[in-house]
């Protein structure tokens, strides 16, 4: 008798499940971010009966390649979350990301911070809903810095007074040869790596000026350590040997509890006529996989995920910076100094390019930056060489 009941139950169970649509989400969150994300997923599953979302955490290192390989062959998830820098490449490769313009209306797009929406747009078509963003800002040691500098003039003056290179103390530390960090100056001087039409502009005048300023800090003012890396910057800051660091939210998790730190917007650049430093905005987008069979339902979940209640959970419990504009008027979120600081910094940010050619940029510009900081080449010559190489590589790829 029992056996028959079991068989009947087993037969019934799948049919009960079949009424629900299952949406698979791939993400690369870990730790607190993952916990907050899963809480949002569980809330969604509890809030309605038609759609069941299951989230799968994929290791970050393998994530992009897994998407590239699996999604176009229909073996991937219904939704995946990734920063916008690969967006153009996936669209160009085809059958990876579904355009979602059709689902959008003004009410929906208005709830996101405009620059994050811009990051999700490629060739005038929107491909994802912005979830969270990351920008570089100024982190300072409160014991060493009483009032954070507002201009580069103040920064250099303050940093000089705090620098003593023989004992390994520096007023400012950041990974300046890495041009993701250095882009705060590139963009501040009106430079960058791509123009509005998506053509490479590595050797533009703004980039040369920006790099000259960085080299002045390194060789003349001597306020930054030589050969920096993330590990060096972190250990200097944790030992109280670096007063100011330019870095993003990922840096905050690494700060030792002994250090009293504060956040302030990046200073304005006197050398560029008082224009602000402009960090790159990298936006995690929620994308619907093109081969998904449940795009409608997937979009419903994407909407929920980027809505205000979900954004609040991810901001307060996951320490993420939501791209949702409305959540910042929430009392608890507004009271959070970290969220507020990044939100302020975001206003001077520039979305990181999402054109497919972006991947071609990394290696040549890194080589140029290394040649410059090693004084093996002048900024103008190094950027000219990089520009030529990028143009050649793009030409080879398009052939």
């Amino acid at each position, binding site marked *: 008798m029992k056996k028959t009941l079991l068989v009947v139950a087993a037969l019934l169970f799948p049919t009960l499940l079949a009424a629900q649509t299952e949406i698979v989400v791939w993400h690369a969150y870990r730790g607190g971010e993952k916990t907050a994300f899963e809480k949002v997923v569980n809330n969604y599953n509890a809030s309605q009966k038609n759609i069941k979302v299951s989230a799968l955490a994929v290791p970050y290192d393998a994530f992009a390649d897994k998407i590239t390989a699996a999604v176009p062959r229909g073996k991937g998830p219904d939704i995946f979350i990734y920063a916008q820098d690969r967006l153009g490449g996936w669209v160009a490769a085809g059958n990876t990301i579904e355009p979602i313009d059709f689902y959008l209306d003004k009410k929906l797009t208005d709830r996101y911070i405009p620059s994050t929406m811009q990051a999700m747009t490629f060739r005038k078509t929107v491909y994802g809903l912005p979830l969270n963003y990351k920008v570089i800002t100024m982190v300072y040691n409160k014991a060493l810095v009483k009032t954070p500098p507002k201009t580069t003039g103040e920064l250099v003056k303050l940093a000089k007074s705090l620098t003593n290179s023989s004992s390994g103390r520096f007023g400012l530390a950041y990974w300046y040869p890495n041009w993701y960090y250095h882009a705060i100056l590139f963009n501040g001087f009106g430079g960058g790596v791509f123009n509005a039409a998506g053509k490479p502009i590595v050797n533009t005048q703004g980039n040369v000026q920006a790099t000259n300023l960085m080299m002045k800090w390194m060789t003349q003012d001597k306020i930054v350590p030589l*050969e920096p890396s993330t590990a060096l910057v972190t250990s200097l800051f944790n030992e109280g040997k670096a007063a100011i660091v330019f870095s993003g939210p990922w840096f905050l998790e690494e700060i030792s509890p002994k250090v009293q730190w504060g956040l302030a917007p990046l200073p304005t650049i006197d050398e560029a006529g008082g224009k602000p430093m402009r960090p790159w905005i990298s936006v995690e987008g929620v994308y619907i996989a093109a081969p998904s069979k449940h795009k409608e339902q997937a979009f419903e979940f994407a909407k929920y995920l980027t809505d205000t209640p979900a954004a609040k959970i991810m901001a307060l419990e996951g320490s993420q910076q939501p791209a949702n504009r409305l959540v910042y008027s929430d009392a608890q979120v507004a009271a959070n100094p970290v969220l507020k600081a990044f939100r302020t910094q975001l206003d001077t940010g520039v979305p990181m390019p999402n054109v497919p050619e972006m991947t071609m940029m990394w290696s040549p510009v890194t080589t140029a930056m290394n040649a410059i900081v*090693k004084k093996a080449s002048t900024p103008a010559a190094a950027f000219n060489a990089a520009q030529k190489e990028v143009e050649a590589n793009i030409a080879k790829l398009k052939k």
Partner: protein
Amino acid sequence: MASPAPQLEPAHDGTPSRTPAPPRRASGAGRIAVGVLLAALLAVGVMHWLDVRRSASRSQGAEAEATIVVARAAADVAAKLGGEGEGIAPAMTAWAQSQPSVKAYRVINIDSRSLEASTFPADQQEGAPPRRLARPEKPLYDLGQTLRTNVETNAEEQTTGNPEFTVERQASGDVLVAAPFKVDGAVTGFAQILATPVAPKSTAPPLWRALAFIAAPFLVVLGLTFFVRNNTILFIAGLVLLLATIWLHATEKGASYGLATAAVLLFVFVGGGYAGRTSSALLEHRQAYWYIAPAIIGMLLLVFFPFFYGIILSFTRQNIYTANQPLTELWIGAKNYVDIITDVNIFRNTPAGRQINYGNFYWTLFFTILWTVANVAIGVAVGLVLALVLNTKNLRFKALYRVLLILPWAVPNYITALIWKGMFHQQFGVINQVIQIFGGDPISWFEKPATSFAAVVTTNGWLSFPFMMVVSLGALQSIPGDLYEAARVDGATRWQQFRSITLPSLKPALIPAIILSVVWTFNMFNIIYLVSAGEPAGSTEILITQAYKIAFEQYRYGYAAAYSTVIFAILLIYGIFQNRATRATESIA
């Protein structure tokens, strides 16, 4: 194996005195005839199949061309009326009456997301046009977006690379064509028509032609067997006939070279008797082959499949944009190899004078060889000296020293690499601090190729000496002590003992170790990638790190595959050469 041409027995080779061929094997002449038949079947068959496909797609293209013109006309009607509004539907109805081939049409405006006019039955379910597009109709909207993007990208880049029309073939044989329309210079929508194509004229070559080409050389060789008694002449005649057949049949000469090569190989394999020998060996040692079958299958899946896939990839131009296209469409022949080998721009002129172009293949090859030789030399020298020291009789704490000296080998090499990278830091690194203690100036290690090379070789030297030490130590302990005793009695000096006894006795152990070590060092990815990362300016890149950069930073998969194949070829040549050299030493020892 059953004889494929029993009617040819006995052999017509005119030498009846020779021992007859084993009964279950084809004679020489029979093999040649069958070889010609099979090779012609392969080459002509594939060529015919390609021809049929090509002509089919050509005639489809011609049909589509005609239908695109009709779709354009439909788009023009909509464009004249501004692309939206009540006027569209009647104008389209009037237009369609003059177009007998059009079965259905629809006009979609993507700016207002509306269906302006439609005679598709499926479109009527959500209500009669004009109306807003419903959710299930998203693909239509996306189609419009794609067309708009393509038109705009083409205008921007001044190309015609992106299709400005879409053509879909229905199961019924009709074609569905969409053409965008512009209002005030911007694409605002598109017209899509379903039309019956004009009956295509078949240009496919007839099957009998291919069959004739397959049969002809076979029949000629068969005939020749009655007159020609010499198998060598018959073989050459078969080869010439085969090539002539392929040449005469080929409609596109360029594509036939690969097939001709394959056909000749097949002909030699069958006609030369290799096929018969292979199959009889397989039959004779059936049991043995069954035993190794699991290993062969495993090797096929895990080693040979990826290997051959890589080689095939190296003949294509696959990259990040084309990763989803079939490889046959990306075939570019040996172009990647030609590009690599003919990349002779070793120097480039800059305002600062002539500089070495470090990204160049030959520089990287030179550096890789320099890197390999330096590392193996250091490894062997340091390892041998330490082994000799440890081999001292009655040395106290010998076991302890041995463990300590093997330690660098036991630590995972990427950890060692990162530690050394830290030690070479310009400001905080321990090496520069030691230099400063002695009054020197700190060195920026990764600023010049020479210092950067010194840094990576030091790191790898640290990693490679323990292996050589262990190998030498083992060999040293197996040298009998009485050899030295006899040498001493004869009055040989220490140096003479080392030259004449120690070194020759170490040779059989050291040479395989050196061969292995050369291959490891040649492809020592971790140390270069983690310590110098190719700095400065890619000058300390070795071939394998360069291949990685091409594949995963420039995303040129085909080119990177060719680069890897070249690395494999270099190591293969080295391996063959070494094998000979080793055999020589073995025979001396």
